[in-house]
């Protein structure tokens, strides 16, 4: 790569990528793709570090009003924030490699502990939301594509646009207003009622995923309690992604429905339902899988807002708390973790796409 860099500006890039595309199997693709995570994560960590340090040191930001200047200097010196920025950066990178994210300023906990405690809650919420998104987005997308330009299509497209025009926190507030305050069907906030929380904490090695833990207690009341708490947050966050999925399925299925091989199948007398299920649907899946990778980022952004709306004690909720407290060490830790998660998911998604479609490999 570096050898061709000084070459002429015009045509160097195109043939070079072409040459690389020939040869190399799935294994090589996975290795190359995996190695690409490293620069991505590195860039993100650096960006976060530079942005956070551009404001000054975290101690002044968090405790500025509460300590005398002398006390501040002492704290800053003790934490090493008066060293040259490059030294701090290398120190921070070294810490990250060893799995040390620093210590929060507002409540003096290791950031790693915060991440492991609250990360599972966020993952659980994201998983529920993905289930909702698939259940709503894919079937409705298929319906919209097969009834193209007719009433169901018009209705579903407006629905899809509404889904992603509505901010998750507003959707959450509306759901709360109607289904918990108005109708009283679901609890207003939290991950479980207090009784269930205590019950779950008595478990040995709790996984942090309340549904799994509740199933392990073997108490059906606990399971249903956890599920009831999950419904509204999952729907609020899931609908956002469902809108994207619906649109994507519709677009791609319309695309494959107009290909020559589908026309050929239709001319052989294959029914419309079968065309959709057997011929048009599977090739339309590949772009959908790729987009899921990008949706993970959106989902995690949405999780921050959903968790704040529903007091779902996950990373997003904590992030909002730490932001209010101006605890930038904790903020930095959470953001870096989310960046790593996003990079890893994109890797997995790309590998899955390559497994399904050989043309993706290069």
């Amino acid at each position, binding site marked *: 790569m570096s050898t061709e860099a000084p070459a002429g500006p015009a045509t160097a890039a195109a043939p070079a990528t072409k040459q690389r595309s020939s040869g190399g199997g799935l294994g090589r693709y996975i290795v190359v793709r995996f190695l690409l995570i490293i620069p991505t994560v590195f860039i993100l960590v650096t960006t976060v570090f530079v942005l956070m340090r551009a404001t000054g040191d975290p101690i002044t930001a968090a405790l500025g009003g509460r300590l005398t200047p002398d006390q501040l200097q002492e704290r800053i010196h003790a934490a090493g924030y008066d060293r040259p920025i490059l030294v701090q950066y290398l120190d921070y990178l070294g810490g990250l490699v060893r799995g040390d994210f620093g210590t929060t300023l507002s409540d003096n906990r290791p950031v790693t502990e915060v991440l492991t405690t609250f990360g599972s809650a966020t993952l659980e919420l994201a998983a529920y939301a993905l289930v909702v998104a698939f259940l709503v987005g894919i079937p409705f997308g298929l319906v919209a594509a097969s009834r193209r330009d007719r009433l169901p299509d018009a209705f579903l497209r407006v629905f899809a646009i509404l889904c992603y025009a509505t*901010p998750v926190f507003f959707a959450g*507030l509306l759901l709360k207003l109607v289904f918990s305050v108005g109708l009283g069907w679901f609890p207003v906030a939290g991950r479980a009622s207090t009784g269930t929380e205590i019950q779950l904490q008595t478990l040995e090695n709790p996984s942090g995923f309340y549904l799994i833990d509740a199933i392990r207690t073997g108490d059906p009341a606990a399971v249903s309690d956890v599920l009831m708490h999950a419904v509204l947050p999952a729907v609020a966050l899931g609908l956002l992604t469902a809108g994207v999925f619906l649109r994507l399925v519709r677009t791609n299925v319309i695309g494959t429905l107009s290909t020559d091989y589908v026309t050929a199948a239709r001319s052989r007398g294959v029914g419309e339902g079968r065309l959709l299920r057997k011929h048009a649907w599977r090739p339309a899946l590949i772009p959908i899988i790729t987009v899921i990778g990008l949706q993970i980022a959106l989902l995690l952004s949405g999780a921050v807002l959903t968790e704040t*709306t529903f007091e779902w004690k996950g990373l997003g909720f904590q992030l909002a708390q730490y932001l209010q407290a101006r605890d930038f060490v904790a903020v930095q830790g959470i*953001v870096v973790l989310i960046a790593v998660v996003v990079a890893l998911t994109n890797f997995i998604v790309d590998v899955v796409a390559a497994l399904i479609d050989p043309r993706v490999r290069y």
Partner: protein
Amino acid sequence: MSQNPSATAHASNGSPAPAAAPARRPSLFSRLPVVSHLNQSVGLQRFMLVAGLVITGVFLLVAVLAPVLAPYGFSQLRTPEGAFGAQQPPSSEHWLGTTVGGYDVLSRVIWGAQTAALVIIVAIVASIFLGILIGLVSGYFGGWLDRVLVVVADAIYAFPSLLLAILAAIVISGGRSNLWGGILAAALSITVVFIPQYFRVIRAEVVRIKTEAYIDAARVIGTPHRRIMVRHVLRNSTRTLPLIVTLNASEAILTLAGLGFLGFGIEPTAAAEWGYDLNKAIADVSSGIWWTALFPGLAIVLAVLGITLVGESLNDLADPRLRSRRASKQVSGDVASTSVAVEGGVVVDVTEPGAPIGDPLRDPADRPGRTSDTTEGRS
């Protein structure tokens, strides 16, 4: 010539006797991005586009006329008769009630439109300018700088945009600020998120265009790089911009609201901001107070919905697979994009192979024989 549509456009528009070739080229107005799309659209698609344009127009009107429309100021707490009172239900004085902080909800919803519009405009102007500049330079010159920028843009693109905007807001304003400080901070935080998108789109177009023969030709006759970049490359690489601008405008509203919701927006005394009001409404909702949450939220949904409807319609109209078809007469593009020139200036239409047609500059849709042919053939 046929490879450079903008050159053709100038040649035909600048010709001294346009009457000599009637209906040769549609007017400049009808070639503007949204107008041309409106003319192409039919049925449901046209309805969605028109609905989006109407909602967006109302949103912009409210934003401009906020001082006239709003019954009170956005940070007004009292009239000479006395304080508004907190969490008052809708009444004749306060059509949409008052918030927990004692502000008038209707006034804050109306003023919020102004804040949102200002943020969108600043964010999009800034990100278009920077994104195009970086994309153009990076794509045109290539080399190691291009590679590094692509990797960086991809990394930032994959990053959750709201988190990035939060980080940027911390850097720019330290969290909270006054009206213009807050608007600039929010807008620039959103800009950081958008630059990679413009960069990617423009760079991809530039890389495609710079291998065209007319660029080589310009280079051969010694045109300076700057002139090639602006005149030949940039002018031909902006076709996807209207789409991204509309999609980004709606995303900007959502990001602004998200920042406000997390307490990183604009101070309530400096400007009205829908996200901030929604954050304050969380506690109200649990006690059954619906008006503080419903109206700012609906304002966000409507504003985003309008802009998204426009963006979606532009997207569908740009993609021939998704464009709804007119019953008989199909809308077709320029000669340059739909036909292939052969020797002697005779044009062979790709859709009808082997049929030579006289004037290469005439739009295929206007040809007397062809339209009637196709209508008869189809019906």
